[in-house]
């Protein structure tokens, strides 16, 4: 299974004074079971890109293939695609609307044509997965805390059993505790259920901690695509486009510039600690 984008172009407001090319010749392959971080400053084309992946936006030119099938084929099941590729928008809790949490999560599966019973099972699994305790199921979603609401909204997408889960800044506005809970749960689902995850985030530290591959967007184009350690080696270029590397990586590069022979590839606190201890041990030995 995979998603392939072949020279995808998209233009907003074509033919008007506000014409802007949001995607320029984007070619990508997303393999089954990957955990990908998508980064780029506001207006770089991230959101436009993810809306192409489940057919919400149609490319002006180029092709998109889901599991080898052209999604722009006239008889392609676009509705089916939208349940396979689940998209969690920014601030998804704004889309909660039902009277109870349980009903809200059932809405997606019921819409897919499942029976009430099947939908209920799905909702139960999804809520369990995001760590919402059973005693809350029949409360109004509007009485929950921000982090809980966010998790219920994510459960609403999970209940549709997507093969690919796309999350647009799922932790914006949450406290560090809530942020870790949500990201840990997503990582767990990725690990245990093999679900493909595409995480859009402005926080390089989160990206560094969780993903196996980073795609950097800039002005509608893919600027870098690769393993996190590789991509963050370009920390200067990333800074120039308003992004940058995790702060520990910047710090290690600073040590290197001051003449301390440290390996600056580390992108997490744990790895940076290891590199610094290594360097100090090496110095002691001499």
């Amino acid at each position, binding site marked *: 299974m995979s998603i392939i984008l072949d020279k995808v172009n998209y233009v907003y407001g074509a033919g008007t004074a506000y014409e802007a090319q949001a995607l320029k010749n984007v070619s990508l392959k997303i393999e089954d079971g990957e955990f990908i971080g998508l980064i780029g*400053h*506001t*207006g770089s084309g991230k959101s436009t890109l993810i809306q192409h992946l489940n057919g919400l936006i149609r490319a002006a030119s180029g092709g998109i293939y889901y599991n080898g099938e052209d999604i722009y084929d006239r008889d392609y099941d676009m509705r089916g695609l939208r349940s396979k590729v689940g998209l969690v928008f920014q601030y998804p809790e704004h889309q909660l609307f039902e009277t109870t949490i349980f009903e809200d999560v059932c809405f997606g599966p019921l819409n897919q044509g499942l029976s009430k019973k099947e939908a209920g099972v799905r909702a139960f699994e999804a809520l369990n997965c995001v760590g919402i305790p059973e005693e809350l199921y029949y409360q109004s979603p509007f*009485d929950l*805390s*921000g*982090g809980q609401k966010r998790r219920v909204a994510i459960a609403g997408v999970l209940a549709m059993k997507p093969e690919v889960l796309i999350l647009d800044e799922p932790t*914006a*506005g*949450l*406290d*560090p*505790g*809530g942020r870790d809970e949500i990201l840990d749960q997503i990582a767990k689902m990725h690990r245990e259920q093999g679900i493909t995850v595409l995480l859009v985030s*402005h926080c*390089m*530290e989160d990206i560094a901690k969780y993903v196996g591959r980073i795609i950097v967007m800039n002005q509608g184009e893919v600027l870098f695509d690769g393993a996190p350690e590789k991509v963050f080696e370009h920390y200067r270029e990333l800074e120039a486009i*308003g*992004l*940058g590397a*995790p*702060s*520990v990586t*910047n*710090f290690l590069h*600073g*040590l290197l510039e*001051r003449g*301390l022979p440290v390996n600056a590839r580390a992108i997490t*606190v*744990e790895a*940076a*600690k290891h590199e*610094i*201890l290594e*360097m*100090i041990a090496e*110095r*002691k030995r*001499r």
Partner: protein
Amino acid sequence: MGIIKARKLVHEYIRRDEEGNVEAIQTALDQVDLDVEQGEFIAILGHNGSGKSTLAKHINAILELEEGSLWVDGYDVSDDTNIWNVRQSAGMVFQNPDNQIIASVVEEDVGFGPENIGVPTDEIWQRVENSLRSVGMLKYRAHSPNKLSGGQKQRVAIAGVLAMQPKCIVLDEPTAMLDPNGRKEVLKAVHELNREKGVTILLITHYMEEVTGADRVYVMDRGRVVMQGTPREVFSKVEELKKLRLDVPQITLLAHELRQEGLAIPQGVLTQEELTEAIEQICRSF
């Protein structure tokens, strides 16, 4: 007396059923004391639902004082006749820039406040110009706000508050919806206002990195102030902060972990420079 003084502030949110019977009481502020001097830069940390925003809304008299006492710029907030003076002394900036901008041209938006309180036209323009210059947005004065980036919009919102010439500005998670660039722009503007114009700042945030430049930090949990001190004092308590669903900046965390490994690194390191220096010193000692 300082610009803000609170004694034993209590605020409860009461939920009632259709007949008006009390269903649940949530104590959002519980005996809060706060003392802020004119010109200070104060950061307020706390997880979602810890009472930060409720506190902020009291300082601007958006919420009515229920229990305890609060003085803003010498005005007793419990006295209704003081409300307009309180609001003019303490301006407020919220999380979502789109909810705070009302006019279709930047300079008209900034001029809205002073016009409302009957400032003479010449002076309004003077204030608009000065405010926009202070936040680095003067060249956008004739632009339409909806074509600006998030960081730019937020700076226009700050200029709008500034045009009221407040002594104090309360910012409730002003960077939560911004990308790293926008976050930097807003932080820089706020620090400049504090340094150059002596405006007192109360910054509520979830980003630990934004706190390091503050004079003092208050940490809230379940409506109470549970920690206060300089950023260095507060961030030396790594374990306690984690228990409160908070974090420390990555550099501080790295320094803390290295210290636990037995390296001679001082407590509460805040910046890359400090940690670089500490590590250089260790390396020199061999």
